[in-house]
C-alpha cells in the first residue's frame, strides 16, 4: 500500500529534543484527526523510542536521531525511529519489562512495554555497533465509527 503522506525528521540526540520530536510527530499525525487519547498514545510511544536512542543508542556520545512517518489510506500510521548508535545485543532481553541496562539512571525499564501497550505493532531491528530501528504502527479510528 502506498502512503498518502510521508515526512522525515532528523535531529541531534539531545534530551531536550525528546519533547520536540514527539510534538512534531503528533502535529503530522493530527491531519488524520485522531482523538486526544490516540494522540497521547503516539506521543508517548515516540517519546519512549527517541529516549532509547539518546539514553542507550548514543549512551556516550552525541548522535543523530532519524524519524520517518507515513500515513496510509487505511488510516494507519507507521513511524520509524532510528539511531546509528551501539545497537542492542539481546533484543528479547531489552524488551522484557523492568529490564534496564542503566539502573543508576532511575529508568523504569518499561520503554518497550509502554510502546507495545500503546501501539498496534512494534518491531525492533538492531545490529551491534550499527544502530537500532524501532517501527511503530497504529491505526487511527475514524471518528463516529
Amino acid at each position, binding site marked *: 500500500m502506498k502512503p498518502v503522506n510521508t515526512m522525515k525528521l532528523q535531529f541531534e540526540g539531545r534530551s531536550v529534543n525528546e519533547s520536540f520530536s514527539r510534538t512534531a510527530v503528533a502535529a503530522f499525525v493530527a491531519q488524520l484527526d485522531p482523538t486526544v487519547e490516540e494522540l497521547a498514545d503516539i506521543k508517548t510511544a515516540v517519546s519512549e523510542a527517541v529516549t532509547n536512542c539518546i539514553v542507550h543508542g548514543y549512551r556516550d556520545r552525541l548522535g543523530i536521531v532519524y524519524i520517518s512517518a507515513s500515513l496510509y489510506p487505511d488510516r494507519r500510521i507507521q513511524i520509524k525511529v532510528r539511531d546509528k548508535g551501539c545497537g542492542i545485543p539481546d533484543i528479547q532481553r531489552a524488551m522484557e519489562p523492568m529490564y534496564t541496562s542503566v539502573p543508576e539512571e*532511575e529508568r523504569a525499564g518499561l520503554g518497550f512495554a509502554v510502546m507495545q501497550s500503546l501501539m498496534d505493532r512494534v518491531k525492533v531491528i538492531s545490529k551491534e555497533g550499527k544502530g537500532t530501528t524501532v517501527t511503530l504502527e497504529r491505526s487511527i479510528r475514524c471518528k463516529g465509527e
Partner: protein
Amino acid sequence: MSVQIEIAEEYCIARLIGEIDHHNAKELRDAIDNAVMTGQVRELDLDFREVSFMDSSGIGLVMGRYKLMQELGGSLHLINIAGHLKKVMMLAGLDRLAILDRPEQRRRRPPAEPVPEEAPEEMQEAGNFEEELEEIPFGIGGEEV
C-alpha cells in the same frame, strides 16, 4: 516543567507542572528529594493535576520516590491522576503499590497544635481506589503557605 513544593511538618506536597520525560525527570527528582531530606518529610504527595504529558520516565520518578519514602519509613501517594497518565501508570502496575489517589478524609492535615505523641495515625494502604475515588477535590490545610 516545574514543581511547586509545600512542606508542613512531616507532610509535603509536590505539584508537578508540565511534561515529564527523560529530559526533565532528573531535575524533578532532585527538587523533590531535596525537599524530602531537608524537611524530614514522612508523607509525600505528588500532584499530577497540571501534568500534560508523561512517559515511562515518570514511572521511574514515581518508583524512585516510592523506594525513598519506604526507606524513610514514610509513605507516598499520587493524586489527581487522570486520562493518559492513569493509562501509563496502570500499565506499569503502579496501582498495585496502592499509592494512587486516596480519600480526602485520610489526609493528615498539618496540625494547628502539636500532635499528641499517641496519635501516630497509620496510613492505610489497602482499599480499592478505583471505586472510591475518581477526581477527589483536593486541598490541604496549609494552603496559605
